[in-house]
C-alpha cells in the first residue's frame, strides 16, 4: 500500500456514508474515522507490526497522513520523540500507563519514557490538552523526531 492508495481510500470514505473503516494490508493497519467533533482529522494510521529491526516503508507511510491531519487542524499537535530508543508507556512494567487516549493532559505531565542505553527520558507535555491518540505501542523502538502522541490543545 502506498501514499496514493491511502489518499484514494480517504476520498472513498469521505464521500461515503461510512464514518469509520479499518483496513489491514501487508503489515500496515489503517483506521479512518470521521467523527462530527473532529471534522478535520481524516486519517490515523498506525503500524503495529513494525518489528524490532524496523519496517521503514510502513513507518514512512504512517507519517505522511498524520502530518496532513496536523496541518488541517491547528489545534492538534504531534509530540515528537527527542531521541532514538525504546518507547515505554508506563513508569515500570507493572504499573499502569502514564496516559491513555481521551485523558486530559496538563502542562508538565509525564506522557511516556524513551530509553536508550539505560538513559531514561521521561517525556513531559509542554501543553495542556486532551490526548487524542497514542501512536506507539509499549516496548516498540522509536526514531528521532517520530511522532509519539496526538494532542488536542485546550485553551
Amino acid at each position, binding site marked *: 500500500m502506498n501514499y496514493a492508495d491511502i489518499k484514494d481510500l480517504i476520498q472513498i470514505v469521505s464521500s461515503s456514508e461510512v464514518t469509520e473503516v479499518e483496513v489491514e494490508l501487508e503489515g500496515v493497519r489503517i483506521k479512518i474515522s470521521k467523527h462530527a467533533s473532529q471534522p478535520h482529522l481524516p486519517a490515523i494510521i498506525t503500524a503495529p507490526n513494525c518489528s524490532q529491526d524496523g519496517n521503514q516503508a510502513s513507518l514512512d507511510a504512517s507519517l505522511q497522513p498524520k502530518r496532513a491531519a496536523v496541518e488541517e487542524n491547528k489545534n492538534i499537535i504531534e509530540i515528537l520523540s527527542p531521541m532514538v530508543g525504546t518507547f515505554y508507556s508506563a513508569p515500570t512494567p507493572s504499573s499502569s500507563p502514564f496516559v491513555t487516549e481521551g485523558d486530559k493532559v496538563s502542562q508538565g505531565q509525564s506522557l511516556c519514557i524513551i530509553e536508550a542505553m539505560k538513559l531514561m527520558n521521561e517525556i513531559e507535555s509542554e501543553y495542556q490538552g486532551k490526548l487524542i491518540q497514542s501512536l506507539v505501542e509499549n*516496548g516498540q523502538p522509536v526514531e528521532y523526531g517520530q511522532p509519539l502522541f496526538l494532542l488536542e490543545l485546550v485553551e
Partner: protein
Amino acid sequence: MTTINQEIIKQLHTQEGYISGENLSKRLGVSRNAIWKQIEALRSLGYEIEATPRLGYRLVSTPNQLTPGEMRLNLHTQFIGQEIVTPTTVSSTNDVAKDMVKKGAAEGLTVVAQVQTQGRGRRGREWYSGEGGLYLSIYLKPNLPPQEASKLTLLAAIVMIEVLRNDYHIAAEIKWPNDIFVGTKKICGILTELRADPEAIHYLILGIGLNVNQTAKDWPEQVQEIATSMQLETGKEVNLKAVFVRVLETVEKQYLRLQNGMLTDLIANVKANSCLLGKEVKILTKAGESYGKAVDILDDGSLVIKRSTGQLEKLWAADVSVRL
C-alpha cells in the same frame, strides 16, 4: 549532626596536631564546657578524638561514613559537589535530585546516601541499596543535542572503570551499556534520567550505585551470587569518603573534556573495557530471548550483534549477557 559539631570536625581536620579547648571555644564562640559536650557527642558517633592535658584535642580517626560537613574537605572540583545534600533516609537519590533541580538547584548538585529505601535500576527493577554502599546522583546540564545524551551514560561507565581500576586495582569491566562487573558479578550500576525536548537537554541526573563495603552477610543469597563489592574484591575496608571524592573528581574531569570536545577516546575506551565484545551473548528484549555475537560498539554507543545468519543488528536498549 548539629552545625556546631560539623564546625568542630572542620577545625579538627584543618588543625595540624592539637587544638586547645580554649582555642576551639574562641573560634566557635561557645563555652569550653559546650565544646567538651560536643566532643563527647562526636565520640559517640564513632569519631576517635584524643584529649591531652595542656595540648588539647586531636582527631585520630573518623567513622567510615558519609558524614555531612566532612565530604567536601578533600574535594577538589570546580562545580560538581559544590552543593552536597545528604538526606538521612531517602527513597532514591535520583528522585531527591530531580526535585531540587525543579526548585532551581545549580549544575553540579550532588545527592548522596548510604542507604536507599527504593533504590532502582532499569525499568523499575530493585537495586539492593543497603548500608555500606555509595548511592549518589549528580545534576548535569550538558551542552549536547538530546540524541547524544547517551554519551553521558558511557562517560559514567568509563569514570567508574578509571576509579576502580586505577585507584583501587579492581579488575572491573563494562557490560554494555554501562553496568560495571568484576568477572560475573556486578559491582556498580548506573541509571541516568533525562528531561529533554527534541532541541535541548533540560537536565540530566546521573545516578550511580556502587557496592563499597558490603560483605556477603549484607545480602540475601540470590544477591550474593550476582553481586560483589570493593571490600570483597580488595579484601580491605574501603574509605567511603575517599571513594566519593574520587568519583566526583573523575566525573568532573571527564565531563569537562566532553563539554570542550576533548573526549575523543570515549568509545575506544568503552570498547577496550567491554566484557561483551567478541563473545557469544544472550539478548533479552520485550520481544523475547535471542542469541548472537557482540561484535562492535558504534560511535553512537549502540551495540552491534551478529546473528547466526550473518545479519548485523544494532541494539539501543536490551539486557545482554555473556552466554555461558
